[in-house]
């Protein structure tokens, strides 16, 4: 897999250097890409956080590695939020690790429905709270 990691890293570097293109990169899940420096050239890193220990623990390690890489803008995105307790868990995490939350995305029926149909939530449920939350995030970047 090292070639895929190197490809993302070099592509991002080239996009930054050459033509300032706007790009969104869905990184490989987990930590390996960060330990290999894959998103070194990213202007913004979004760390998707679910309100569970394992997800937050992975998020914490991603955050550490991202700071080591020197990525300037790092934000958390709270995802699959089902209750106030869920939201509080992510807020606690953000506070104790000094990372700003850029969006809170609810676990809503629109996303589930899109998943079931194998289509985009943007096409299936454009007005769902989750799609609107990510849309607002896009406006804020």
């Amino acid at each position, binding site marked *: 897999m090292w070639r895929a990691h190197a490809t993302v890293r070099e592509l991002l570097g080239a996009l930054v250097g050459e033509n300032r*293109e706007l790009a969104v990169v869905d990184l*490989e*899940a987990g930590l390996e*890409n960060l330990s290999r420096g894959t998103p070194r050239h990213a202007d913004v890193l979004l760390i998707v956080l679910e309100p569970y220990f394992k997800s937050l623990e992975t998020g914490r390690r*991603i955050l550490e590695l991202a700071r080591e890489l020197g990525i300037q803008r790092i934000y958390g995105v709270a995802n699959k939020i089902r209750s106030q307790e869920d939201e509080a868990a992510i807020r606690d995490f953000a506070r104790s690790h000094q990372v700003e939350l850029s969006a809170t995305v609810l676990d809503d029926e629109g996303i589930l429905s899109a998943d079931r149909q194998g*289509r*985009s939530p943007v096409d299936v449920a454009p007005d769902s709270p989750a799609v609107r939350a990510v849309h607002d995030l896009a406006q804020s970047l």
Partner: protein
Amino acid sequence: MNIAIAGKGGSGKTTIAGILARSLGRKYGRIIAIDGDSNPNLALTLGLPRAELTRLQTLPRDVLEQTPEEGGKTRVRLKVPAGEVIERFGTAGPDGVKLLVLGRVEHAGAG
């Protein structure tokens, strides 16, 4: 500006990436979406037609080359300009999205 999205497997990373790319594409008219996962699913969340999904191009490995550096180290770099990589291997999607799929694990234990 490029925006990378990280998280644990199953965290909904790809869903966020897909919606975000569509929103930004709508706002700016053009955006590159890069699927760096070895189990690529971004195409679906971006809303590419099903017929496209089975014949998505992936990036050939030979776009990279290793060049020797001082001290016996090697450096990996793109052989062709990034813009050309995107033109040649990207797939057009809705809202000005151009999708680039880096790879897929074809066989267990490969690569």
